[in-house]
Structures are given as structure tokens and as C-alpha cells.
């Protein structure tokens, strides 16, 4: 038994010359998403069609619903292109519905314009047929209990009564590549997810301070990547040890500036990794005003440390909005595991909330920045994290 699933995509159909590239990317991503389920993906009349084993229907649907660019999907029955065949398929479909669904509406659409009946004619003919065959049904064109949708394709007709929403957005990869700063907290995976939603292909960068933090913080970053990878198929995670940098900052810079200087070192490191991996931007989970290092002044001072574009998809989001997205993505339960930085050693008691660039730059002169960056980068570890 084969199940056929229609896959609708929205935005990308509108994008003029890029359309082919976008569709090719979506096709690749769909194929990767259903890999291993024995499902084939083909193009038909402005949609993709997934055909796979019926016993894996739920699995296939849940995977397709995680592919960015997909607006909605519908498992569909098919019929040969004749009114009798369509009628009998419609009849079979209606029989599978609970009898409590008593009002309906038929909505036909034709991709094959040479089909002898127009869409309104199909609607009324199939509607009349269902009314005469199933006395419990009646028509309600405004608020029907179910819509029977019929798409007249070039080779066959598709019939279905429901749609599952997809994540929308653009296919991962079509807008470029970026580096996500992945801390292990709640925000950064959501930021990564939102960047991917707009078509960016993401690699992760995690900073740790082993031995001042344990191995579990790295494991957590890996788990978060694995979650994100369910939306992109795979992910590369880079890890850099910043313990030495933290020690130097602690020894040489005024304590309240510690965090902001560390953040500046982190974006410098990120810039170096991005350049090496040919990534065009950095994505962070910063949201305006959440903590001391995320005031407008802090963001300005952090930006000044680098020339690379920094994207902050969560900038204007409230914490509860971020949390509910994190729950939806599935990263929340990983993020809240208590493998926080063990050591308060490097946390200043009163961090600066309104740093001034001049003062920070002056404090940084005590550091041999190029050497610190070079040493930290030389210890870079990179792993490929497959999706589960």
C-alpha cells in the first residue's frame, strides 16, 4: 500500500528568477527529510508529491512538517481523470470520515485546463452525487464540517479533506550560510531555528571553559544541534575552549568589564571561524534588554569588535514567546537541564550595563588579542551532528 502526500509551498513560488533554485533546494531538503522511509519525491503541478509506504504515513508526515518552505501537506486519495472514477474515490473518502461530520463543501481546482468540466461544474456534480448517496450529508459553503478538495492534475486527480500546516519559511540553504553562537541556553537554539526558517544553512559554535565547565556542557550543545538538525538534516558543531581567555581577562581587566570583553572576544573568534568556513554572518540569541550584556549599549560595543554581520532574530521577542517556540521546536527540555557553568569564578558581581566603547577598548589593550584568538582557534574541535 502506497500513501500519496501533496506538499504545498508558498513564498518560493513567487520569487521570479530564483524559483528554480528554490524548488531544487526544497526538493533536496524533502528528499533528505524522508530518507530511509522508502519515500519518493516528485514534482507535479506546482506541488511536490511524496509517495511512500502507507504504514509509515505518520512518520513521513511528521518529517515533512519539519521542512522549511513547506506551507502545508495533505495525504490524498487519487483517481483516474474521469468523473466516474473521481466520484467513486470521493465516495470512498467520505466513508472513512466519522458520521458526525455532516456538512461539507467541494472545492475543485484544475491544473490540467483541458479537463472537460470547469471547477464549478466539478463542485456541483460531485456535491450532488454525495448528497444523493449519503443522506446524512448536507452542503454548507460557509462553515462546512469538512471540505472535500479535488485537484485535477495532469495524470490523475487528488482528493483530500484535510491539511497539516508546515513550518513555512524558505528552504534551508537558499539564502546563505551563517554561524550560530550556541550557548546551551533557551534562546540560541530558537535563534538558529528562526535563521534556518529564513533559508539560512547554519553551523553551530559553542564556547566552553573546560576544566571550569564539565564535558556535559559540550554534550548539551551537541544535543541541541541534534534537535536543530531535525529541521536541516545535519549540522556541524564547532567548539572552542575560552578558559585561557577568561583567565587573562580576569587577571588583566577591570572586573565589571569582564563579560562584555569576553563577548567581544567571542565574536572575534566567531568571525575567524566564519571566515574559515565561508559563512557570511553570525546569528546570536540576544534579545534586547534581557540581561546586562544585552542593552543597546552592550550590543553596540559588541558589534564594534567585528565587521561581520551579526543577525539577532530574537531581538524583539519576549521571553515567553521564545520559551513557547523552544517548546515547539523541542529544544526547551534540553536547554533547561542544569549543566550551567559550574564556576562563578569568572562572573563579576556587578557587570557593566552601559559600557562605553572607549573605556572597553582601553581595558583591552592589556590583552594580546591576536595571540589569544590564535591560541583558542588552534584548539577548535568540530563534529558533524546527524539528525536522530
Amino acid at each position, binding site marked *: 500500500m502506497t500513501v500519496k502526500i501533496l506538499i504545498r509551498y508558498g513564498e518560493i513560488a513567487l520569487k521570479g528568477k530564483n524559483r528554480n533554485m528554490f524548488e531544487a533546494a526544497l526538493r533536496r531538503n524533502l528528499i533528505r527529510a524522508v530518507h530511509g522511509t522508502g519515500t519518493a519525491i516528485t514534482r507535479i503541478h506546482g506541488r511536490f508529491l511524496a509517495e511512500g509506504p502507507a504504514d509509515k504515513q505518520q512518520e513521513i508526515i511528521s518529517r515533512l512538517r519539519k521542512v522549511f518552505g513547506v506551507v502545508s501537506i495533505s495525504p490524498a486519495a487519487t483517481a483516474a481523470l474521469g468523473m466516474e472514477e473521481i466520484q467513486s474515490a470521493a465516495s470512498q473518502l467520505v466513508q472513512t470520515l466519522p458520521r458526525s461530520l455532516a456538512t461539507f463543501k467541494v472545492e475543485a481546482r484544475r491544473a490540467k485546463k483541458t479537463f472537460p468540466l470547469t471547477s464549478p461544474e466539478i463542485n456541483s456534480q460531485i456535491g450532488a452525487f454525495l448528497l444523493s448517496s449519503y443522506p446524512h450529508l448536507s452542503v454548507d459553503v460557509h462553515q462546512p464540517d469538512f471540505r472535500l478538495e479535488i485537484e485535477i492534475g495532469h495524470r490523475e486527480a487528488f482528493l483530500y479533506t484535510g491539511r497539516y500546516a508546515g513550518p513555512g519559511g524558505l528552504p534551508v540553504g537558499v539564502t546563505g550560510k551563517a554561524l550560530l553562537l550556541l550557548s546551551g541556553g533557551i534562546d540560541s537554539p530558537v535563534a538558529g531555528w528562526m535563521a534556518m526558517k529564513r533559508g539560512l544553512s547554519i553551523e553551530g559554535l559553542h564556547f566552553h571553559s*573546560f*576544566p*571550569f*565547565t*564539565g*564535558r556535559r556542557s559540550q554534550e548539551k550543545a551537541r544535543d541541541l544541534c541534534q534537535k536543530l538538525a531535525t529541521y536541516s538534516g545535519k549540522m556541524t558543531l564547532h567548539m572552542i575552549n575560552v578558559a585561557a581567555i577568561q*583567565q587573562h581577562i*580576569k587577571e588583566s581587566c577591570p572586573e565589571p568589564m569582564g563579560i562584555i570583553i569576553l563577548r567581544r572576544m567571542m565574536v572575534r573568534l566567531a568571525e575567524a571561524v566564519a571566515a574559515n568556513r565561508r559563512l557570511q554572518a553570525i546569528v546570536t540569541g540576544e534579545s534586547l534588554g534581557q540581561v546586562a550584556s544585552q542593552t543597546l549599549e552592550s550590543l553596540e560595543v559588541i558589534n564594534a569588535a567585528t565587521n561581520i554581520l551579526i543577525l539577532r532574530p530574537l531581538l524583539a521577542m519576549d521571553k515567553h514567546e521564545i520559551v513557547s517556540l523552544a517548546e515547539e521546536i523541542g529544544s526547551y527540555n534540553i536547554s533547561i537541564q*542544569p549543566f*550551567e*557553568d*559550574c*564556576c*562563578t*569564578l569568572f*562572573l563579576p558581581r556587578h557587570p557593566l550595563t552601559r559600557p562605553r566603547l572607549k573605556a572597553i577598548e582601553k581595558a583591552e589593550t592589556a590583552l594580546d588579542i591576536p595571540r589569544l584568538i590564535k591560541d583558542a582557534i588552534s584548539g577548535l574541535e568540530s563534529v558533524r551532528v546527524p539528525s536522530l
Partner: protein
Amino acid sequence: MNEIYLDNSSTTRPFREVIDLITDISLNSYGNPSSLHYKGIEAERVLKKARYEIARVLMSGEDEIYFTSGGTEANNLAIKGTAYRYRRQGKHLITTAIEHPSILNSLYRLQKEGFTVDYLPVNDQGYISLERLGQLIKTDTILVSINHVNNEIGTIQPVEQIGKLIKQRNPRTLFHVDGVQSFCKLSFSLASWPVDLFSCSAHKIHGPKGVGALWVKTGARLTPLFEGGEQEQAWRPGTENVAGIAGFGLAAKLSAGQQKQDAALMHSLKHSLYQGLLDQNLKVKLNGPPLEEGAPHILNLSFPGVKGEVLLHALEEQKILVSVGSACHSRRPRPSHVLQALGLEKQCLDSALRFSFSSFNNRREIESVIHHITEAVKSLSRI
């Protein structure tokens, strides 16, 4: 760089022979011991053999061994099983402040259900006061539960004396000994001791995880923790973990066979490590009893000025694996209840590390450990 595993109180590397046996039994003697056919009899025979091995180590009767899923279940069964069984006789239980969480949390649950529990304090070496215990035992005291060897500091409680005292005060009070850290590490005979229940676990003695046993002296009775078939006298229902139990039996036989040599080796490793660190002029403080008095395989040291968890990770980088006395989280520090009960100062609480040995360790490893600890402590105390 070779791994140096000094976390043997957490778990041990299994003996090769034990794993081979488990593989063989899993593949070949896979029958259900309750089945009537020969495959069942064969599996039952495996259980009998393991029961025999363990009984022999404890110098007890085979029919007094009840297999469980491990030390935690054995402790739960000992505490709740007797409390529920004897609740009409009394609702008072006694334990110490330095027990394993499987004991303490079982007792907290009983307290919520209306039992009363006394927690004996310990002195700065981890010993309870016999006098204090004597005062606490009353006519309604149904159970005293005390760990034989403390898992964090290695204090050995005078179990025989404690048992005599209990029976002298109230002959009906049962005495449970949590022997997870003493089984096959010390030499003793349960038969001659005034003890009624004894817990042990396979993976602490180079056996598999997921297997343990509760020894229940003939005459003592239990209420099972959950319902099922008639296995283990219906005190611990559920199809037996045949292969795991076989591995447990063999691990106990092998460990007990070399117990004397192993204890001597571990004792000397413990001494060399401590002495070696002192010789390096490191600030080291011994937590728990004096070296000669404590269990041979456990050494707990504080390195004031250094965070234990950070030192652990620094040693981990050298593939030296140890364990911390307190898990430190920036938000809520959670020092070990055992070290707190000793009355340690904060500096020592935060910097405690536990080194625990097995017969797989050797002197060369200890020399390397001394070297790396010295290096790490020196570089970390700069911060």
C-alpha cells in the same frame, strides 16, 4: 596516554570472565527459570549456582539471598519491606546522617506516611556514637539501618558491636546493613553477626550493572515493593535477570577469592597517594577516618583553594577519572550531605575529591596521579 580510573566507588570495570559468562548465558541459557521444560531448569540451575557463590562469600544460607535490580532496590526493599511488614509492631526507625540516598529517601517517604525516623549524627571521622544509638532504641523501634562502609569517606562502622547493642536493647528490632561498599572489599561473616538484612551490588565488585541482592536472615519477613509472580519467594517478583545474576555470582567468587591481596594493594596505593601529595608540599586535608582505619579502597581529600569540580575536569584532561564530594552549580551549591555531616569548613567542602581504587590500579598510576594533581593544583590556585 592511558586512562587511570580512580572512581571505583561509583562503578568498576567488569572482569573479562564475567562478561564472557554473561554473553554465554544470554545466548545459550536464555530460558525462563520458571518454565517447566529443560530450558527453564537450565536457567534455574544458573541462578542456584550464583546464589551459592554469593551465600558462600557472605557465609550465609543460600535461601537467604534475594536477587534485586541493584543496591538501590535492595536498600528500598530492606527499608520499606520491613517497615510495611512490621508497622503494627512499631513505627520507629533509626539511621545515620551519612547514608546513601536510596536509604535516606526511602525513609523520607516513610516519614510522610506516618513513620518516625531518627538520624544519628557522626563525628568528624564519620563514626556514629553507640551511646547515642542505645538511647534512641525503644520498644517500637522496628529497624536500624546503617551503612557498613561509607561510599564517600570510607568510614567502617563497628557493625558487630552495633548489632549486639541493638539486640540487647530490643531483640525485636531488625538490623539492616547497607553493604554495597563493603561486600568483597572487607572480609566478614554474616552468619556470626547480629545482622538481619544486608544489601550488596554487583557492579561495585567488577560485575554487571543492574544486579544486586538483599540478604535476609531466616526469620525476618518482608512486604514486597511490587506485585507479580512467585519469584524470590514473591518478595521480589519478576523474571530473574539470569545472565546478570550469573555474572554477579562469578564476580563475587573472583573478588572474594583475591580479597586479601586486593585489600593490601589498595591500602598501599591509598597510602602512597596521600603521602605522595604531602611530600609535594600541597595543601591537602584528609576527610574521614585515619588512613589505617578506613576502607582500603576509598580516599577522600580536600585541596583548599581549588574547586573540586574544576580539579576533577583538569585531571580528566589527563585521563585521570575521580569523583567530587560536592556537585557545584553556580545557582545552587549542593555540597555532599556526608561531608557536611562531618562538619567540614566550606573551603574543604568545595574542594573535596574522592579517589577510589580497585585491583586494576597500580603504583605507576599513582605516581602519575600525584604528578598531575600537583601540576593542576598549582596552576588552578593562581586563579
